């Protein structure tokens, strides 16, 4: 009921804005969304925050003469507010200097794919349903071992719809449900602490198996007790799904046209070149309904597309906004994300091609190495050369003669992405850890040389 009412309101206000824009001799694109969000955060095995929000926004980009634009995002959804905002944007769009490379709003015909991205049952959920899920995770995690000290984490469920309309006649509305969760479990033994972590998601609350995941996380937390200090140096390592997800966010970000035109990407001028190991293939796959970032349309009104980002280690495509594509003489493929009229490209539905080796086999193949389950505070150090740094967190395990023999205290790595992905093996188990921009579908990676540069005390 709430959803339907808000849908009508957002569509009515969007059409009102478009009418006013046309009266002012301008064009516009409008992205609107509404969602009921349930958000819960738990720590030390109890809920610290539990809340519900009715989130709604309208983002309007007004374009004058195909070359001048101004943008705004608002949740002040009164008719007076929208009209006043639209008039302000039209005034500003007429005043800003024209950008000769700006291609104007999308006018070409678009075929938007039909995707099922929602859980119809989500609309009838109550707060107690979310608490029940959290309780399952807490009870299951605590039952694994007496050394489990506390279960922490969070859960966000957003259920609503996204709406796009433009003055050139493009229009699409589609429902979405998105659930993401993190479980972080603390084991304690004689004052020594060990944590393990998992971030994952689903479109269906019924498919979100927090109980099973919590058990796995708890086992890893206990396994992490007794961590030893090891020397910083190069190691052969396995990056588990969540660590791979973090690494591939930085790889994807480096393919953003915004970084490329700002000369801030190590992938500048590398299209068609062998950048990584030939086993590495990465797609942007926005039509897979299981992918939590999937969508039929980007923020600029282009239909999203499946395309190769890397194929056999060769860089095949950047992800463009329409303006960047125009500047670079390329074609945008539905990867634009806008904020106040400024769009950047990003391969938001990253999906790795799986290998044919089981993770267990990868571990067996390592004589002297490490299993890294999670990376923390990863950041570019020098973006034009692809150097990054970060820490291991919540699970660093020592592998000797093909077996996990214990855990290690966390280490800092500082290395260059092209070097990290130069010699790799790819696991066969695909999984979708959560993360920035909706996360990605990834497989474990075995990396021949991974450079740890310093230690920490835990």
């Amino acid at each position: 009921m709430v959803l339907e009412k808000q849908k009508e309101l957002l569509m009515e206000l969007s059409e009102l804005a478009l009418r006013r824009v046309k009266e002012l001799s301008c064009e516009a694109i409008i992205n609107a969304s509404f969602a009921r969000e349930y958000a819960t955060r738990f720590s030390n095995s109890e809920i610290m925050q539990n809340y519900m929000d009715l989130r709604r926004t309208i983002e309007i980009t007004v374009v004058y003469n195909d070359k001048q634009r101004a943008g705004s995002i608002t949740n002040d959804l009164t008719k007076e507010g929208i009209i006043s905002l639209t008039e302000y944007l039209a005034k500003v769009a007429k005043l800003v200097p024209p950008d000769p490379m700006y291609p104007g709003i999308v006018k070409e015909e678009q075929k938007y794919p039909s995707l099922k991205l929602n859980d119809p049952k989500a609309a009838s959920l109550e707060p107690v349903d979310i608490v029940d899920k959290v309780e399952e995770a807490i009870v299951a995690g605590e039952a694994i071992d007496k050394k489990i000290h506390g279960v922490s984490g969070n859960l966000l469920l957003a259920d609503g719809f996204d709406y796009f309309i433009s003055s050139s006649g493009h229009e699409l509305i589609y429902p979405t449900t998105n659930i993401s969760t993190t479980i972080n479990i603390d084991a304690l033994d004689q004052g020594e602490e060990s944590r393990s972590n998992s971030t994952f998601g689903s479109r269906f609350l019924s498919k979100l198996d927090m109980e099973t995941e919590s058990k796995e996380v708890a086992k890893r937390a206990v396994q992490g007790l007794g961590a030893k200090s090891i020397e910083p140096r190069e190691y052969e390592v396995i990056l588990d799904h969540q660590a791979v997800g973090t690494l591939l966010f930085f790889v994807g970000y480096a393919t953003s046209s915004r970084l490329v035109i700002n000369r801030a990407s190590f992938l500048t001028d590398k299209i068609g070149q062998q950048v990584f190991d030939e086993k590495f293939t990465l797609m942007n796959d926005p039509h897979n309904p299981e992918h939590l970032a999937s969508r039929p349309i980007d923020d600029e009104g282009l239909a999203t597309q499946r395309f190769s980002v890397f194929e056999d280690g060769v860089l095949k495509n950047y992800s463009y906004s329409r303006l960047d594509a125009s500047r670079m003489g390329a074609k945008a493929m539905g990867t634009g994300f806008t904020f106040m009229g400024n769009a950047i490209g990003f391969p938001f539905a990253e999906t790795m091609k799986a290998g044919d080796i089981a993770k267990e086999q990868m571990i067996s193949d390592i004589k002297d190495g490490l299993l890294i389950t999670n990376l923390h505070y990863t950041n570019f150090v020098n973006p034009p050369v692809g150097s990054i740094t970060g820490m291991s967190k919540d699970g660093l395990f020592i592998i000797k003669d093909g077996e996990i023999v214990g855990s290690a205290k966390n280490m800092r790595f500082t290395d260059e992405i092209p070097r990290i992905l130069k010699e790799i093996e790819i696991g066969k188990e695909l999984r979708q850890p959560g993360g920035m921009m909706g996360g990605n579908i990834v497989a474990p990676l075995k990396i021949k040389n991974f450079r740890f540069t310093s230690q920490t005390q835990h």
Partner: protein
Amino acid sequence: MDDFIAKAIEKAELKGASFAECRIFGYETDSTSMRNGQIETCGRSKSIGYGVRVIKNGAWGFASTAIVEEHTIEDIVSSAIKEAEATSKILKTPVELTEEPIIKDKYFTPFVKDPFDVDIEEKVEILKKADSIIAEKGDVIKVRNNSMNFVKTYFDYGNSEGTLISQQELFSGCDSGATAIANDNQRRNIGLYEMRGFEFIDMFNFEKTAERVASEAVILATEAVAPKPQKTAFILEPYQLGLTIHESCGHPSELDRVLGWEADFAGTSFLTTDKLGKNYKYGSEKVNIVCDPTMPYVLGHEKYDHEGVKTQRFHVVKEGIFNDYQTDRQTAKLIGQSHSKGNARIDRYNRIPLVRMSNLYLEADPEGPKDIDELIAETKEGIYGLHWKSHSIDDKRVNFQFSVQIAYEIKNGEIARPLKNTIYQATTPEFWGSLDMMTKEWRIEGLGPSCGKGAPHMQIIWVSHGGPYARFQGVNIFSG
């Protein structure tokens, strides 16, 4: 808004809440950015709404909406109550809050000129001028960026104890940057914020700043060298010192992190509660880290926090010894303190207050060298690093690695040559233990809305930091 807030609180109490608060919060921005002479962003954003937080059966519940109309109060209060009732199902520790004075007040941060009233043409002209100054450096400059950003916040708050506050903030920020490519690809930028109006644009001085970043970008790309790996004396200017304070002193002293409430996202803290009041040595005796949101004009300045508690100046570290945590009403109560330190903040109406930094800085040394020139003259050998390029720190805030945009090698008390890609890596107590000299000159630098914390919704808070020019001994330096 007072009537609206009173109605929400009354409804919550009727539905069995033992505590209720209603927070109406607006956040408006006005942004203009230019890249290579073309406007990249020009527009405004607005987020407004209200949230009701209650305690029922000893548990928190919260609900919010963007529709600030009386007819929504019943639903929002009912939802908050339902959330609390659901939470109480698995409650272990009933929520208790510190007792705080009841306050009735209105406060507005002072400004001279409202940037939302300034014509777009004036803003574009300023950015164009800065762009042309950078462009004058020639073809070696490949990317020119200049921007200005203005933020207004509106905060109306009331709780069932009787506190009723209205507070408005206005802050302004500017950034100027250049990327030069010659022997190397290097970027230099300077961005600053203050709790002021459009008058801050003159104080930032786009023309001077654009000239500086362009010149230094050219130096970095053409003549700077990478430092060899070494342990040496390392001097930080107030901005980068501020970032180091933020990461290695600010976050570890947030009590919610210490209690494990941030474990699922940003991590915990090495500064465990057994270290409070036990003369825990955080750094050398010269280290005095002060939290002071009462300081006017600095970013993070506010008279009241978002739980309606009056903010205050206090030492986090005093003469090298850990002194106290940053707290809110719930966390302070949990460790037996009688009052919150006033560090609860939200970034939008639909978020729950978390323990956040505001203005945290290192006190200068009144006996130290006058300024950076005198400090360099006092340094036989070392490196002077300026402005943020990259940062990373572990989940307990111990092992950190930061890099600076530009650095200078110091030989025999003089600047010898420029350095690029300079990284410093240390552990927190070791680094602060090595602070041996600071200038009398100091300043606070606004880092902008840039500090992320919280899950599943991350909140981005505006903070400022700074202090003097400070020298640390035996710092691990390398390049990358």
